[in-house]
């Protein structure tokens, strides 16, 4: 830096040299040399890719043909992209508001509870996990099979506590003689008279559900003035002959058998013995139906289909809110701390209720902070991609997709549709602009 500063004044006795002619250039050089590297990187990594993407979006997928706005037209006509647009709208409408509200509630609550630091930490913790890992965690929690998904396992435990008790969860009739369903019970088509024997063969019984005390099934002898029968697992290795009680086939103890009159009303019921036999004594003459009662079957808990096409978007939204609530809470709590206490005290002294204080004093004073949270969340939601990739299984990815996700999908998941991908990227950029303007304006207002 010898040409500037003190060095200039040193030569004594001589006339001061004329100011260098290129001084304007030189004066610009210094800031440029500082800004240069940043500008260069900004150009290489931001401006150039942005412009190139916009330019690329006007070409076909192979980049060989100029197609004007055809790719943009696809955004509004393609079925998958329409779902994505709808999903994006839902995300913007629901999630930022929800995150802000939850953050506010948590922030206010933490001011009042004893273990507030512990609570704050546990709410803030998810933010320390990468969004992709969050997705993996929730994907497992949301699994439909209660043996795999924690949420459905919890629901299954609750249902098991209050649900119907039964010895079997599923079965189907072994022959066409039995009709009905698990809900109605399986009824024998032909009628039975006293002295008759009813054969109730069931198959498709899960091996672990075969009662432990079951023994070889036996076809009972007819009973004078009564109806007997057997209910058994009509299956042996290789299938066996349906409808016949064979060696190696087990009785189904505990199964409830109903005696129904010709009108279909149940008049008696009994339970099968270990060899599957049952008997109704002293039955009046007449025609009767015999049925396996529906109470035999415990309603199996199938699990809520969180990852199915109906619930997938709410499920992902919940995971996102779970992560972002901590961020919203911390920012809001900081805002709360800076609210002048005397204003609140003054309101309370004037007789305002807690709700009125919250509604009329706290919220208006917090408004700028809440806006920050809200706008940050909108931006986060618009570019959401990783959570969808990691939570939605392949079969419901289309139902869960957002624009950013489809942009990745069409360009990089093996489809190589770079024209459409660039168009979607440009479209997302356009969606961002209003929020960027809001943010920049506020930043200016803050600094001035």
């Amino acid at each position, binding site marked *: *830096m*010898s*040409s500037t500063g003190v060095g200039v004044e040193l030569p004594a006795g001589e006339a001061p040299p004329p100011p260098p002619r290129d001084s304007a250039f030189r004066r610009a050089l210094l800031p440029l040399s500082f800004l240069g590297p940043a500008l260069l990187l900004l150009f290489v990594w931001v401006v150039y890719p942005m412009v190139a993407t916009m330019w690329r979006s006007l070409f*076909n*997928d192979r980049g060989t043909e100029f197609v004007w706005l055809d790719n943009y037209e696809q955004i509004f006509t393609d079925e998958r992209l329409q779902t994505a647009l709808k999903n994006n709208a839902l995300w913007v409408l629901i999630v930022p508001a929800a995150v802000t509200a939850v953050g506010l509630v948590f922030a206010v609550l933490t001011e009042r509870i004893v273990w507030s630091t512990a609570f704050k930490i546990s709410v803030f913790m998810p933010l320390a996990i990468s969004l992709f890992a969050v997705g993996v965690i929730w994907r497992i929690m949301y*699994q*439909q*099979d209660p043996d*795999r998904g924690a949420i459905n396992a919890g629901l299954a435990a609750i249902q098991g506590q209050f649900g119907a008790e039964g010895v079997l969860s599923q079965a189907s009739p*072994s022959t066409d003689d039995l009709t009905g369903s698990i809900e109605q019970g399986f009824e024998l088509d032909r009628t039975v008279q006293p002295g008759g024997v009813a054969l109730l063969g069931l*198959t*498709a*019984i*899960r*091996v*672990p*559900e*075969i009662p432990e005390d079951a023994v070889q099934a036996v076809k009972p002898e007819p009973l004078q003035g009564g109806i007997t029968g057997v209910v058994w697992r009509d*299956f*042996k*290795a*290789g*299938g066996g002959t349906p409808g016949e009680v064979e060696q190696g086939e087990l009785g189904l103890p505990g199964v409830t058998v109903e005696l129904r009159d010709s009108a279909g009303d149940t008049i008696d019921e009994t339970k099968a013995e270990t060899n599957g036999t049952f008997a109704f004594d002293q039955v009046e003459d007449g025609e009767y139906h015999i049925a396996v009662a529906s109470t035999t079957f415990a309603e199996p808990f*199938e*699990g809520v*289909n969180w*990852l*199915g096409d109906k619930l997938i978007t709410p499920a992902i939204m919940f995971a996102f809110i779970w992560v972002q609530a901590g961020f919203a809470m911390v920012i809001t709590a900081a805002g709360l701390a800076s609210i002048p206490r005397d204003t609140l005290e003054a309101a309370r002294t004037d007789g305002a209720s807690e709700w009125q204080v919250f509604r009329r004093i706290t919220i208006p004073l917090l408004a700028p902070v809440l806006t920050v949270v809200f706008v940050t969340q909108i931006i986060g939601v618009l570019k959401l991609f990783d959570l969808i990739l990691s939570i939605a*299984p*392949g*079969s*419901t*990815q*289309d139902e869960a997709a957002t624009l950013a996700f489809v942009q990745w*999908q*069409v360009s990089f*998941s*093996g*489809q*190589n*549709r770079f024209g459409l991908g660039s168009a979607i990227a440009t479209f997302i950029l356009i969606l961002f602009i209003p929020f960027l303007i809001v943010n920049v304006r506020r930043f200016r207002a803050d600094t001035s």
Partner: protein
Amino acid sequence: MTKQRFILLALLVGVLAFLAAGCGGDDDEAADTGGTTEEGGGEAVSGNISVLAVWTGAEGESFQAVLDGFKEENPDVTVSYKSAAEPATVLSTAVEGGNPPDIAALPQPGFMTDFAQRGALKPIDFAEDKIKEGFSDSWLDLGTVDGKLYGLFFKGANKSTVWYNAAAFEDAGVEPPADWDAFLEAGDTLKASGVTPYSIGGADGWTLTDLFENIYLRSAGPEKYDQLTKHEIPWTDPSVNEALTEMGKVLQSGNIAGGTSSALQTDFPTSVTQVFADPPKAAQVLEGDFVGGVIADETTAEPDTGFNVYAFPEINDSGPVVMGGGDVMVMFKDNPAARALIEYLATPEAAEIWAAKGGFSSPNKNVDTSVYPDELTKKTASELANAEVFRFDMSDLMPGAFGSDALFTLLQDFLKTPDDVEAIQKKLETAAASAFKSS
């Protein structure tokens, strides 16, 4: 000013030079095949050649062992092996730069066609007789582009296998079925015994395309399979209807583990492990030879007593037909050393080196199957090598927008409504038409 400036500039130049060096780091790989002798057999060849493939880790070591075998036979040739996660991308760049390796293994024949049509590959017809000895015509056809032989399938994958829970089959008194009717009947018997017959990894679309391809190749035959692959017949063709109808019989909600909605959330590894859980959630899983590795790594099931495998059942007397994948060896530079390596890789001896180490199936029917480390690999590998008809996985040969996207999601839709065959056919045809048009 000047001094700091200079240092800064020097730093910048240094960084740039470093980056440039990183990009062009392949220069020293250039093959120089010096003193060579006649091509006739028996004469020693010499030189340096480079080979590029996808194999790393244990696979990389096994392949290195194969190359070491070549080195023993040709002590004057130095072979340098390099692996790349995406060989096609690396090779495209290398070909553009005029500096490809001598030999490379490509994971899909589509890349081979691409390079051959760009004129980057050298034909390997000098080895044709040798390849014909060991490989069935299907493999030669797959390695041929525009009438010239360019590719040698060194490693294969058999996707026409069904893996089953041996105990569940025994409890139900079911034997591995040989044809489709017996297969469906066995499914009913398994169901009656209380075990769901099939496990479907419906969250991954490719498990469904594999199932469809296996059925279609058998029910419609290899000619139609080729035509459908190239979209020369539409997806609304009656042959597709027949195959989807059969597939629908498998995909009924009562036949698949957890029912339809659970199957749609089951990924491939889970679809394997749940067959070997206690109690099993299903009796069998319909996927390729790589299932064996998942069972070995993630379950405690033992071969034979716990798990076993049978060939995908025949449909309409289709005979020994295998659908699968494979890695194809291609030659970018023609020189005696490279030729010698191609000829070496076509021999059963070369394949046996890797086969003995496991995790490998050779399409070469002259490979001594006793070298495979276990009975099940021996079974799947010999089915692969002895198949009268082999077809490459159809979805890998189609444009990505269809083969690895629309086909996946539409077959997942089909899993949701397996009785609605015609609706799905129409959707498949619409998607295929637009994907084949724009590619």
